[in-house]
């Protein structure tokens, strides 16, 4: 018997279009509603049909939110899945499936449990029921709530008629019973505890958290040009555009998208664009306009590996330098990178207030791994959100670019008040008219690039410190690597190591420097040149002692970081 305790990782693998997503959806939803903590993440090839896509689902007694390399249960839907995943298989891996989908050379290395999916499906009426059977087995292994599974199927297939519903239920039952039987016959042992509270939690992806956060932050217009992995935010927003009463517009290119968002803000609305590195590259021209005209804007950039088209469906944190330095001329910006689904929601909402307050571009950096990950989270506290609009009613003498001590000029908008607004991408006087005057040119540069930056820095958020205040080792990471590092540190259980996670990447508060002093700094990033470590060096003059970098387009796994950290600590 192969036994799994506390935390099981199930991986489904098959061709694009084979319905893995259906199984994943049934499984995660039904198990969550049965009281299990779930986490899911997928990896897929840049193609519409065929290839091999896989999904990892973790089911656990406690909250799990990170990718593990280990596969406990594998359900392959076609040949080729095992070779594709061979580095993640062990003799503890149980493979459930058809014999023909398991290549001969793996039979020794795994525990194989033959399940005649196809035959079972045909018994129900059609090969189409294969997915439901697979989902049923997995739910059965956990003794998930069968009533919930039935209800789910009724809801999902209800529109297709009573026959389809009852056959799906029949298929699910066959699968479920088999799953239970595998446990009863002690072929597989699973010991994962349920938690009642989980039932009331929300199952949300990074994509959804960003989109909902934007809506909560008052986004009125979302503009975009499709590009993986950022498109999901547009899809979700468009699907709900009617309820939210927002505009979601697919533009002719990223240049139009970003300029539209600028126009929306200029007129007092809140605009966001969602894009990826290649799209952002096209937006850098408009970023400079935002800098010069002091036009607020929020940009969501879901990173994927570059340069150029790179690996379109994979993950990396390699666009930090792009967002830090893109745009010509000097002007500040705010760069945020949420580490968890909750953070993605609250931070995106906050991004709009920040853009409004400082009148600068605010860039939210995520990545493919982050947007495609989901897990259960406690319901958000919407009352904690504040809509902070910094628009003023203008008078006749209104000056759009009034020189102020903190570098922030009160922002008026057309049609609100007695003044007129003249915004300008050329160097300008306080009214917004073109100037080439020496003193003014200097003052305006200082206003934008220095005074405002100082103000922003004062208000910038500190990184989150987890663990001892005075550790010997300090692990540093940013954005989406949050949970994987956290889980590793929990597993390590050492007192002498702490974790500093950055979700606010720029500008950094001065007080960060002290946190970095007199410690062995270990930087963890998903890029090849340690871009964030370079930023810390530039800002604070500190050098990290160790770099743990990954740049093959795959997310860091708990095991990898565990091993790498052990290597550093020993």
């Amino acid at each position, binding site marked *: 018997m192969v036994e799994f305790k506390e935390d099981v990782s199930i991986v489904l693998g098959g061709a694009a279009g084979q319905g893995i997503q259906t199984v994943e959806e049934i499984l995660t939803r039904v198990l969550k509603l049965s009281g299990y903590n779930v986490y899911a993440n997928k990896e897929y090839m840049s193609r519409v049909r065929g290839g091999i896509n896989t999904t990892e689902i973790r089911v656990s007694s406690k909250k799990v939110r990170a990718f593990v390399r280990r596969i406990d249960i594998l359900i392959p839907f076609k040949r080729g899945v095992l070779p594709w995943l061979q580095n993640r298989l062990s003799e503890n891996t149980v493979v459930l499936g058809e014999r023909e989908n398991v290549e001969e050379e793996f039979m020794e290395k795994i525990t194989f449990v033959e399940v005649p999916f196809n035959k079972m499906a045909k018994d129900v009426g059609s090969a189409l029921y294969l997915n439901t059977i697979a989902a049923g087995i997995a739910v059965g292994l956990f003794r998930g709530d069968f009533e919930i599974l039935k209800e789910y199927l009724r809801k999902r297939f209800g529109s297709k008629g009573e026959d389809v519903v009852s056959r799906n239920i029949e298929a699910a039952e066959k699968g479920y019973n088999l799953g239970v039987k595998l446990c009863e016959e002690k072929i597989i042992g699973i010991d994962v505890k349920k938690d009642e509270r989980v039932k009331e939690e929300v199952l949300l992806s990074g994509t959804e958290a960003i989109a909902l956060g934007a809506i909560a932050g008052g986004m009125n217009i979302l503009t975009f040009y499709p590009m993986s992995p950022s498109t999901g935010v547009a899809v979700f927003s468009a699907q709900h555009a009617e309820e*939210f*009463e927002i505009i979601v517009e697919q533009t002719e290119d990223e*240049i139009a998208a970003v300029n539209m968002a600028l126009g929306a803000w200029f007129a007092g609305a809140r605009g966001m664009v969602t894009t990826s590195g290649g799209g952002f590259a096209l937006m850098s021209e408009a970023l400079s306009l935002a800098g010069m005209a002091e036009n607020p804007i929020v940009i969501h950039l879901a990173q994927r590996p570059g340069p150029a088209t790179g690996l379109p469906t994979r993950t990396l944190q390699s666009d930090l330098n792009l967002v830090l330095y893109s745009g010509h001329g000097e002007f500040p910006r705010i760069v945020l990178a949420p580490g968890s689904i909750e953070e993605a929601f609250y931070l995106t909402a906050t991004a709009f207030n920040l853009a409004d307050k400082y009148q600068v571009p605010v860039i939210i950096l995520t990545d493919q791994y982050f947007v495609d990950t989901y897990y259960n989270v406690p319901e958000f506290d*919407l009352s904690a959100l504040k809509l902070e609009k910094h628009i003023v009613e203008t008078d006749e003498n209104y000056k759009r670019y009034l020189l102020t001590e903190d570098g922030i000029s009160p922002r008026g908008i057309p049609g609100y008040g007695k003044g007129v607004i003249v915004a300008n991408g050329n160097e300008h006087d306080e009214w917004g008219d073109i100037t080439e005057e020496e003193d003014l040119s200097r003052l305006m540069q200082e206003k934008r690039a220095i005074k405002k930056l100082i103000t922003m820095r004062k208000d910038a958020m500190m990184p989150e410190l987890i663990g001892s205040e005075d550790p010997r080792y300090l692990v540093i990471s940013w954005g989406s690597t949050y949970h994987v590092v956290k889980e590793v540190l929990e597993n390590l259980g050492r007192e002498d190591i702490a974790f500093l996670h950055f979700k606010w990447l720029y500008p950094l508060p001065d007080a960060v420097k002290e946190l970095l002093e007199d410690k062995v700094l270990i930087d963890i990033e998903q890029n090849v040149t340690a871009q964030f470590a370079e930023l810390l060096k530039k800002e604070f003059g500190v050098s990290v002692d160790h770099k743990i970098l990954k740049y093959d387009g795959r997310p860091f796994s708990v095991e990898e970081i565990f091993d790498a950290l052990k290597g550093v600590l020993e």
Partner: protein
Amino acid sequence: MTSPMLFEPKRPGSKDIAWCPGCGNFGIRNILRRVFAELNLTPQEVVIISGIGQAAKMPHYIKVNGYHTLHGRSLPIATAVKAANPKLTVIAEGGDGDMYAEGGNHFLHAIRRNPDITILIHDNQIYGLTKGQASPTTMLGMKTPTQPWGVFEEPFNPIALAIALDASFVARTFMGYFEKSAEIIKKAIQHKGLAIVDIFHPCVSFNKVNTYEWYNKHTYWMEDHDPYNREEAFKRAIETDPLPLGIFYIREKPTFEEQVTAYKKDKTPLWQRKPKLEEIKKILGMKKGF
């Protein structure tokens, strides 16, 4: 009618007009002040979004809201301004280089999108601000410092293109005809939907071919033209010498702002709205189950 003087800016920076003496841009400025007054508009409710070029400096020489943006980018910005606040009268201005070269893609897609804005193209058939290079509308054979062999690329025909794309309002004028130009621009602003007005005006500094006399001689006003007849409009649009002036084509159709989901139920300008937290709550509720 309000007074054209209402639109005279008194800001220190707007005194020093960067246009060359005798340039057609002055005439367009005067037309705008007059038309705004005739339409009883106030400076607060008008917005001019401009790109880059001599023509694009307009927001500094007139008292309305303005945004002097980047080369070729006025249209997406103007589209969003109108969408964010449909109560505003939005005008996009730029030269032929700005709108047809750098902004060419946006021009095509603005026509498809059909926001209720007016595009005024100061078409001097040359690049002014960068000192006399050929523009997309420069005539065949014209020699410039950067096309010393003479332009051999086929000139862009914005009128034919716009009609081909079934644009909502397409007109051409020569600003030497002040009254008629004012009339057309006024109709363009009043028109519901995207209105395109290609305005010939000489560049006295860099275009020695298309002068006032040239335009007088090589243009004519269309009489008895039915702007609702697309085929006729297209025939007129491909005439080359003399070039027809007037309103070529009108097609009433729904605007961008009318069709977006945001205004289906609620007409409040977007900037005055609050996030729909109750809808978020609903979605989160759904995400608890399935």
